[in-house]
């Protein structure tokens, strides 16, 4: 599955996207796996209330299931317009 990072999440993790093999059943489980990897992930994911997530380019919640998902993106609240 592809994991994408945008804005300051991208900057803290240090890359815009990466390929991850994961058996996480939900976004929250995936976040737990990522947090356990390295300090920069733990920092980026330290406060989930400051983050938003999209699964296959649809905004969703951290308890969303990942079955069949091809692309998960993490980013701060959007500031368009």
């Amino acid at each position: 599955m592809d994991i994408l990072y945008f804005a300051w999440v991208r900057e803290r993790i240090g890359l815009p996207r990466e390929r991850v093999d994961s058996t996480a059943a939900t976004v929250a489980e995936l976040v737990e796996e990522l947090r356990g990897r390295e300090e920069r992930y733990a920092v980026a994911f330290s406060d989930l209330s400051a983050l938003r997530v999209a699964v296959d380019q649809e905004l969703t919640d951290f308890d969303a299931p990942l079955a069949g998902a091809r692309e998960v993106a993490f980013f701060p609240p959007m500031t368009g317009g």
Partner: protein
Amino acid sequence: MRVVVQEEPFDLAAETAAFAQGEGSSGAIVTFTGVVRDLDDAPLEAMEIEHYPGMTEKALHDIAAQAVARFDLQDVLVIHRYGRLVPGAQIMMVATAARHRRSAFDAADFLMDYLKSRAPFWKREITAKGESWVAAKDEDEAALKRW
């Protein structure tokens, strides 16, 4: 319905005229244009807008389609830029056409509220003092509850 995501400037006058041209049967046309402006406390060198290619187009189409259905629009246009923009540059525009004035106004207002908090764009402000990501405001999220 037309949705455009691009780095290049758009021609506000030509877009407005073309939109109005196609809308002879509508009574009311509203446009909103967002312009990069200096900050309240410091001159801005540039604003950089990052986006999520693929999701951006889908989100804008979805928001535009919601506006059409909800406000019975006869047409809608959404243009949003990304990349580096300098003060005075036009960032985005929306246009709405409806038989009635209230629908056209409300739809443009709705589109702006949703573009602000539900379209995957992130703004970064660059000044002589440094750079920083624009933080989303609680009021922007709260604004969605109006609809």
